[in-house]
């Protein structure tokens, strides 16, 4: 027993010493990176303040840029997104939109708005992507090219765009990311300084939540009022203004955000384009570029420019954020494992000997070890071997160092570009820097362990979702809390008003038709959008909601005649007779919210950032389309003469199809049929 006790104590002591030593080393690394970042930022600010005395729109030497935009089921916003890109301020730009097998009207909307016509010729290149159906040119916008192809995911769509791009540089942009109008002029700077050597440059991604966006321009920068997005602002500032700048100082930038990055087209083609079997293609492409160019013994520059900004919406709920972060973690592990030959390999210079190993230690193992510490500490206390005083001091010191590093990031932002101009916002950011050490940071260690387990299990859930359509952080934010409509509305159908109210969501459906919901009571309920109504396909109303995700598995709605294809044993049909469905009611569209069983319903509300969000409303004025959905037992109560009911008998509806909710396995089986 003595021996066993001694062994346990010894194990705890050794582990404790290891954790302390590990922590000290990683934080010393972070501190160095932060200090380096300050010097880099100083130089970048000074560089951005100097404008050479020549007219850049008159020179023949500015490199042209192809903006490659993968799009999947973006019918509601693609028109505005492309319009915003066509307005980018740059001498020579081409916009390549890749419709990645959308199941909604994305292509049709583009064809109509931009007067597109299919090029009557096959693509004469071997493009490493899913088959391309057609390539479209606009009769009015010479610089617009639209590629329509089979679904293959984001990487696949990017490859199609890159192979058909006509410019020496291409800029990969997420379709829901808002880019500053002058962003291309800024992100191209490394290619202007080193025309032959530069191969990639990245910009800053900032949080768009609560910002005022009009016509694709961020007109007002605001700090999110809610905690989780606010904490992420803090994180992004630290990641970009400390992390990436610091790595850039030592020529060790190994990550350029997929939402906004500029690359030399030939260089990416040389390495075969984006890998389709990875879920963090942005990390993977830069690491592979480093590897390839070093193997080729070529002098090159990968740079980070802190001024050009792309704005994106971040998850507002823990569930969606957790899903996002697990995906990032899995992707990081995958990329590290794939490129492990670079670790401690002098052939790859500073990237192989310093940057990559420290990145692995800090970003990959760091959260795991920290999480392990949180488990061991209570055990050590239980076994009486924890010096509580020591632990308290240690915790305060680590928290203090963590806060200091966060505040360092805020200082960098205030000192340089100062987008958060109000000192009050800066104080809130500093407060978030404190807050994130109490709960948020600990929660992230759980997410990391969860992500590792998913990776070890070979979990490709995001990869599978990629097959149906890539997601962005914004998609995930919108997906949070949305649930199987079949199960949920089935319950609502029987439970009437209370359940209908309970199934209401309180946020974040975007106009793309993504799901709603931050309301935990909607765990089994939700609201879906279906793109057509039987009577009037182009009117406002329900739309397709693709890829509704739950904790258990991702899913989506598909039309089918077989009610058993999806989760549950039924789906939604449109009908004029609500007796056709289970229960005695359904959802109708109306301009009068009092028409339904309660005193309100759900309507689309334009949010500050231009997206449409589904919210529970008792007043349908000033909402998108001046109407919304209410639950009722009277199918004629609404604007039309019917509505949607949940049923197990699809022939009860106006046609023989219903909308079933499927998870991907079931969807794959269906596709194979």
């Amino acid at each position, binding site marked *: 027993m003595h021996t066993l006790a001694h062994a346990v104590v010894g194990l705890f002591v050794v582990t404790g010493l290891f954790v302390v030593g590990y922590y000290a080393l990683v934080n010393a690394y972070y501190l160095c990176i932060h200090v380096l970042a300050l010097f880099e930022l100083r130089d970048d600010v*000074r*560089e951005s*303040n*100097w*404008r*050479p*005395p*020549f*007219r850049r729109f008159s*020179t*023949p*030497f*500015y*490199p042209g840029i192809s903006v490659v935009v993968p799009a999947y089921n973006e019918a509601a916003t693609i028109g505005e997104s492309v319009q915003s890109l066509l307005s980018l301020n740059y001498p020579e730009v081409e916009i390549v939109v890749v419709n990645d097998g959308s199941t909604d009207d994305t292509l049709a909307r583009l064809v109509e708005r931009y007067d597109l*016509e299919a*090029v*009557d*010729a*096959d*693509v*004469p*290149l*071997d493009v490493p992507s899913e088959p391309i159906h057609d390539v479209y*040119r*606009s*009769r*009015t*916008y*010479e610089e617009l090219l639209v590629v329509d192809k089979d679904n293959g995911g984001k990487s696949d769509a990017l490859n199609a765009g890159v192979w058909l791009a006509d410019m020496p540089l291409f800029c990969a942009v997420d379709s829901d990311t808002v880019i500053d109008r002058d962003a291309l002029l800024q992100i191209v700077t490394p*290619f*202007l*300084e*080193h*025309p*032959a*050597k530069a191969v990639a440059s990245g910009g800053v991604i900032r949080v768009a939540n609560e910002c005022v966006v009009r016509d694709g321009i961020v007109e007002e920068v605001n700090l999110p009022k809610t905690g989780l997005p606010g904490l992420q602002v803090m994180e992004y500032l630290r990641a970009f203004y400390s992390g990436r700048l610091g790595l850039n100082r030592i020529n060790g930038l190994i990550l350029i955000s997929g939402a906004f990055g500029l690359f030399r087209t030939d260089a990416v083609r040389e390495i075969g384009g984006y890998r389709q079997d990875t879920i963090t293609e942005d990390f993977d492409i830069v690491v592979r570029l480093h590897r390839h160019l070093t193997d080729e013994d070529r002098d090159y520059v990968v740079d980070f420019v802190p001024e050009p900004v792309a704005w994106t919406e971040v998850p507002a709920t823990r569930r969606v954020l957790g899903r996002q972060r697990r995906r990032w973690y899995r992707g990081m592990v995958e990329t590290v494992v794939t490129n492990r030959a670079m670790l401690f390999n002098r052939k790859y210079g500073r990237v192989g000997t310093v940057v990559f190993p420290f990145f692995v230690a800090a970003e990959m193992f760091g959260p795991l070890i920290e999480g392990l510490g949180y488990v061991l500490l209570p055990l050590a206390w239980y076994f009486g071997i924890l*010096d509580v*005083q*020591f632990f308290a*001091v240690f915790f*305060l*010191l680590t928290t*203090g*160092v963590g*806060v*200091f590093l966060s*505040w*360092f990031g*805020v*200082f960098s932002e*205030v*000192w340089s570009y*100062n987008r958060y*101009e*109000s*000192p009050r916002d*800066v*104080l809130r950011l*500093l407060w978030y820097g404190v807050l994130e050490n109490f709960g948020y940071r600990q929660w992230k260690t759980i997410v990391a362990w969860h992500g590792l387990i998913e990776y070890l299990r070979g979990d490709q859930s995001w990869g599978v979702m990629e097959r149906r359509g890539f997601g962005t952080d914004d998609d995930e934010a919108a997906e949070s809390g949305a649930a199987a409509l079949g199960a949920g509305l089935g319950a609502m159908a029987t439970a009437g008003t209370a359940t209908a109210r309970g199934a209401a969501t309180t946020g974040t459906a975007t106009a793309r038709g993504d799901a709603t919901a931050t309301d935990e009571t909607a765990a089994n309920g939700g609201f879906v959008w279906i793109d057509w109504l039987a009577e009037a396909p182009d009117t406002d109303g329900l739309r397709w909601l693709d890829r509704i995700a739950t904790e258990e598995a991702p899913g989506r709605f598909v039309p089918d005649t077989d009610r058993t294809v999806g989760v549950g044993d039924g789906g939604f049909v449109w009908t004029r007779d609500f007796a056709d469905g289970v229960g005695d009611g359904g959802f109708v569209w109306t301009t009068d919210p009092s028409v339904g069983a309660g005193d309100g319903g759900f309507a689309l509300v334009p949010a500050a950032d231009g997206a449409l969000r589904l919210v529970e409303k008792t007043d349908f004025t000033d909402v998108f389309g001046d109407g919304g959905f209410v639950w009722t037992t009277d199918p004629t109560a609404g604007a039309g003469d019917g509505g949607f009911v949940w049923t197990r008998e699809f022939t009860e509806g106006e046609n023989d199809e219903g909308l079933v909710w499927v998870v991907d396995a079931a969807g794959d089986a269906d596709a194979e049929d």
Partner: protein
Amino acid sequence: MTGQITGFGYAVPVTVVLVAIALVVGLALAVSFYLTVGWSVYRSVHDTRRDSVRDDLRGELLARLFGDDPEWETWVGELSGVEREVVESLLDDHLRELDGDDADRLRELGDALAIPERASRRLADGDEFERLHALTWLTLLRRPEPYLAADFRPRSPRERAAAARLCIETGAAPAAVAVAILLADGDEELPVFGQDTLYRAAREAPSAFLTTASEHYRTWSTALLVQVLTVTGHIDTSVRTGDLAWLTAALEGDEPAVRAAAARALGAFGWRRPLRDRVFLERATADPSPKVRAAVYEMLADWGDETAVSVLMHALVSEDDRRALLRGTRALVAHDGVDGEAGRVFGDAWAWSSEHAAYDRRVNRGSERVVT
């Protein structure tokens, strides 16, 4: 907490070590907090003041600019420090947009703000960015005197570009001198600003430019030589005499990037008979690099004479790199001297190129679709 930490012959209690670390961390936190908040407040106040006066100052500046007598000196004398900053910023913006008499009049404001004097001090004592700002201001204000008076030696490609630009824009030195400044260091590539400046200088002094190139091209780095070749391709209308043999030599150099750039440059000089040797052209179309071959195809299409088109079509028939074939057919379609039937031998590449050319024409002209 008990125990000691020993090192370098000293034993220090753990408590003391932890307290010391805590003090350091606490101090760092306090400093970073006050610095951050203080700087944010300062910037907020400063930026608000700037924004509040900017529109008024812009209005005042334009009124004086287009008035009878701007009386810049008097006006500048009445400005506060913040207002002077804003006026300088406005001056910078407007000088980049205006030309002619308006710009000349505006430059007098620069004198009133004592910008040339400050530029002179920065040239002498400043770091790289201060020197760049100084050169830029002197260029915008057309005031080369401080530069000529200073013992200034450019230390980077950016500074060489800025100095050369000053020479060209102000006439402080002949364009040939600007060429010499830009190409003084044969190792480093020029920034795009420098390449554009080289282009402007080469247009004014093409003989000096081509002579320098023909004498030194073998010693230059690949990246710089590619830039010089690219500039060469843009100055064709300025060339009257000059040794172009180095261009054909570059087409047979070791580096594919150089050969491709040489081909693009030669595209502009096709009217020179000595360059049109058929054997030479066939050798060029057999280059091992598909990117070079593509550039050669574009060169031949630019020339457009019977021999060139014949060589091009023969080469394209046996081209197995799809992207090179596509660039070749695109160039051939643009040349517009090959009918559709003959082009169909190139398959999808010809059809694709023809379709896109038709769309380009339609967008540019707004005309009906051209059937190919």
